[in-house]
């Protein structure tokens, strides 16, 4: 029985929870970053003397950094400060620390910078005005090139009844975690201690060590409460600056971004252009060609993660007998591309669903029927040759279509009902370790992630431990430890946390059970469980019932309990290497699907779209905690409505972000999110404990597709650009 009451509720509701922005220690200095004045240029002079002349100010640039931390040049591809060439506007060229924030900002204003401006690449379409040939893979403007092919593509196109060609464009979005990035670094006796708001304390340690050229063993990272992550707090952003300044200032240094800086420096999803060609024969997809140009900003060659990952989503969860797919990661003078809840997957789902809808309309069949007829089913193989395994999207789509039929029957005139689908994977592949500590009074999971809000750690991992051991969740503690004390975990992202850490919990519990069986002189595979007995915990099974206190050694009782360790390094399925012609494609761990229904009204004068109600059907395998899963679906849908309708970071010709604030970058407000019906569908087990699947990202993926289908249903407007702002809908309706 899952409860909606959150274990972290009391602390957060009392205002006692300490986030990154709240960090404050005696003697602390306040830091600020010195922003590049152009998006592309050569640094002719960087003079920090004016800043240093202010009382109590330390200022560091590339030269000072090399003296303070000689290893900091160890990773020339990721310099803390660019020594020569500026790659994007506001890129930090130097950093200052001062006794107050006002003094730090004043010091930034005293830094003298001379720059020789270079040509700015603001728009990926200016790099490739004509669609590139495969030889463009070697261009300095391309960070990655991926290409895959399978089946008789050319023959299928030549013999097709009809070929549908379309081009789509998607915009740039930002995570908009309400807490901007913030951290505090201290340096004492050669050891860094960093407190930060992060989705990955171990990731920050690894990044910071690499960027500063210091051993990981010299860095201890401690997570604070996290005021929203959504992918934006998965890697280090500010920590290495604060750490270097702490060495220079010989004092604790706090560095936090203003919200405008959060928009300007954040790593997130950038624009794309996608070309689809679909060959149809006898009412079925015979072959597809898909080409992707993805803006990856200042991502360096070999460092692009997005293209090979995202491109798999552009084929959609559909049977495709022959295909050719190609993607270019195009470098521009923007900050590097970074993950945003299900990176680029909602955009891909929007494009695939809208395009296949258009194909269906052109051949005169029902768009939902057309998609259902091609949907992957359990046991299918993906176009890239990976087995799909247990996949519940068919059931989800059937349920969504039933709701859509009902809503269409009762909809007032002018309303539109749309269905969209998407798929995702529970990314358990990244490593997870936990320790279980059994004490006479309770069981504790010792682990290294802070709860970022989804409930994946405090609710999910606890629920897995409860289900495995038989103890009620209330008797299971979740202990957070910093990177010096915690077992390793790769981070809270990829819908992996409860799944991967949960699998590690199961392994630690198996080890604990074996030890307990030995001590009770039972066969090692005896199915033991834990139970409450008043304030004490007892071990039960194999005809025995013994207080935990009686099976622990005196040393273990004194040390707080008996500990075992569990780890989980899942493996992705295999992609057929024969189908891959260039670059890296990412295999999925399992497949989870979702089908959504949107009911919209469209203002016929302005093109403004209002979502009136919404329903979501999710293939979740075994539900670990229904209340948290529902909360993830509700929140993910609201975020997806922003991606669908209003959220767009606008870059001008000089690669300057035009709307770095919440007034002009519009996320959904309370009055704009409709009532949402959530249905969790069991029956198709995934890679998590007890057959669970992840639920952090799937809810955002089908939203723009469902909304676009509803807008088309209401008005006939076929919009091929995301977001569907009032202006774009009005243009499609020829109102502008």
């Amino acid at each position, binding site marked *: 029985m899952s*409860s*909606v*009451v*959150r274990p*972290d*509720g*009391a602390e*957060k*509701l*009392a*205002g*006692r*929870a*300490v*986030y990154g*922005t*709240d960090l*404050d220690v005696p003697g602390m200095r306040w830091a600020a970053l010195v922003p590049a004045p152009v998006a592309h240029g050569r640094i002719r002079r960087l003079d920090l003397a004016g800043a240093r002349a202010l009382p109590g100010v330390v200022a560091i640039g590339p030269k000072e950094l090399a003296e303070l931390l000689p290893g900091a040049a160890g990773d020339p591809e990721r310099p803390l400060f660019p020594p020569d060439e500026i790659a994007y506007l506001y890129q930090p060229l130097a950093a200052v620390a001062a006794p107050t924030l006002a003094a730090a900002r004043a010091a930034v204003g005293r830094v003298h910078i001379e720059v020789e401006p270079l040509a700015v690449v603001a728009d990926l379409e200016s790099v490739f005005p004509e669609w590139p040939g495969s030889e463009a893979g070697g261009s300095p403007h391309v960070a990655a090139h991926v290409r895959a092919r399978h089946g008789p593509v050319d023959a299928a196109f030549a013999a097709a009844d009809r070929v549908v060609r379309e081009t789509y464009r998607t915009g740039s979005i930002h995570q*908009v*975690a*309400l*807490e*901007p990035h913030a951290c505090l670094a201290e340096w004492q006796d050669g050891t860094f201690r960093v407190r930060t708001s992060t989705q990955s304390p171990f990731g920050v340690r690894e990044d910071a060590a690499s960027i500063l050229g210091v051993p990981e063993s010299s860095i201890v990272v401690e997570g604070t*409460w*996290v*005021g*929203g*992550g*959504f992918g934006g707090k998965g890697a280090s952003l500010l920590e290495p600056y604060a750490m270097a300044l702490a060495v220079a200032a010989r004092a604790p240094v706090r560095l936090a971004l*203003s*919200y405008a800086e959060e928009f300007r420096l954040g790593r997130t999803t950038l624009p794309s252009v996608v070309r689809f060609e679909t060959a149809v024969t006898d009412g079925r997809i015979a072959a597809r060609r898909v080409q992707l140009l993805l803006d990856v900003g200042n991502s360096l060659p070999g460092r692009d993660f997005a293209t090979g990952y995202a491109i798999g989503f552009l084929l959609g969860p559909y049977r495709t007998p022959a295909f050719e797919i190609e993607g270019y990661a195009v470098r521009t003078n923007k900050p590097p591309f970074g993950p945003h809840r299900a990176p680029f997957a909602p955009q891909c789902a929007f494009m695939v669903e809208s395009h296949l809808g258009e194909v269906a309309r052109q051949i005169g069949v029902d768009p939902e029927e057309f998609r259902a007829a091609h949907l992957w089913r359990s046991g299918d193989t993906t176009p890239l040759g990976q087995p799909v395994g247990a996949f519940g999207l068919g059931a989800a789509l059937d349920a969504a279509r039933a709701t859509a039929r009902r809503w269409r029957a009762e909809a007032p005139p002018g309303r539109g009902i749309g269905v969209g689908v998407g798929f995702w994977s529970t990314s358990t592949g990244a490593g997870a370790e936990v320790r279980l500590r059994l004490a006479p009074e309770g069981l504790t999971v010792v682990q290294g992630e802070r709860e*970022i*809000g*989804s*409930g994946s750690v405090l609710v999910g991992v606890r629920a897995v431990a409860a289900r495995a051991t038989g103890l009620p969740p209330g008797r299971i503690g979740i202990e957070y430890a910093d990177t010096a004390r915690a077992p390793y975990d790769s981070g809270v992202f990829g819908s992996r946390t409860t799944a991967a850490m949960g699998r590690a919990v199961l392994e630690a519990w198996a080890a604990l059970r074996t030890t307990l069986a030995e001590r009770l002189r039972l066969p090692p595979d005896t199915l033991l469980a834990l139970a409450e007995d008043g304030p004490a915990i007892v071990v039960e099974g194999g005809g025995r019932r013994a207080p935990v206190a009686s099976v622990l050694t005196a040393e273990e009782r004194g040390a707080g309990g008996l500990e075992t360790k569990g780890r989980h390094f899942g493996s992705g399925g295999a992609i057929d290497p024969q189908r891959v012609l260039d670059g890296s494609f990412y295999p999925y761990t399992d497949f989870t699907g979702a089908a959504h229904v949107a009911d919209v009204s469209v203002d016929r004068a302005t093109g403004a779209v209002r979502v009136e109600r919404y329903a979501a059907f999710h293939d979740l395998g075994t539900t670990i905690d229904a*209340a948290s899963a529902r*909360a993830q679906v*509700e*929140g*993910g*849908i*609201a*975020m997806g409505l922003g991606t669908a309708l209003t959220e767009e970071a606008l870059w001008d010709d000089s690669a300057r972000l035009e709307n770095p*604030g*919440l*007034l002009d970058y519009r*996320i*959904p*407000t*309370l*009055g704009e*999110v409709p*009532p*949402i019906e959530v249905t969790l569908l069991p029956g198709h087990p995934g890679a998590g404990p007890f057959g669970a699947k992840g639920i952090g990202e799937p809810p955002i993926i089908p939203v723009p597709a469902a909304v676009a289908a509803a807008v088309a249903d209401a008005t006939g407007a076929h919009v091929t650009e995301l977001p569907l702002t009032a202006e774009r809908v009005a243009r499609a309706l020829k109102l502008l």
Partner: protein
Amino acid sequence: MSRPPLRLTVNGAPHELPDVPGEERLLDTLRWRLGMKGTKEGCRTGDCGACTVLIDRTSVLACLTLAHEVEGGSVTTIESAGEPTLERARAAFQAAGALQCGYCTPGFVVALAGLLAERGASVTEEELLDGLQGNLCRCTGYAAIVRAVRGAREGAP
């Protein structure tokens, strides 16, 4: 000539604060002068509502309020204990599970408490929701918050 000390009451405790510059914002006075970090700093431009506090019984954005504007006034923050409408709002948020990361939560709870105190027992659910339009949440999709608001209104003493 130096400015007289700033006098204000925060959650019932009187404070007399010397040397508060004229441009200091109430948000910074609370967070950095008084060390009360429960009031959150989000956008600092009045767009997100995370820094909502009550002055007397009216909710204001502490990031857009100069500390000296509140001279002689009474400020209620999320750290307040025992204030009846705040406790009601807090209990409703806990019962509905209306929080995830928790960063917008103090602003929502304080704003809801202000609406309950200002409008009294006759307040409608629609009025309460309307009064919270200026508070942004990125995690919950507002669904659980709407349930909490319903609970807080029905839980009227």
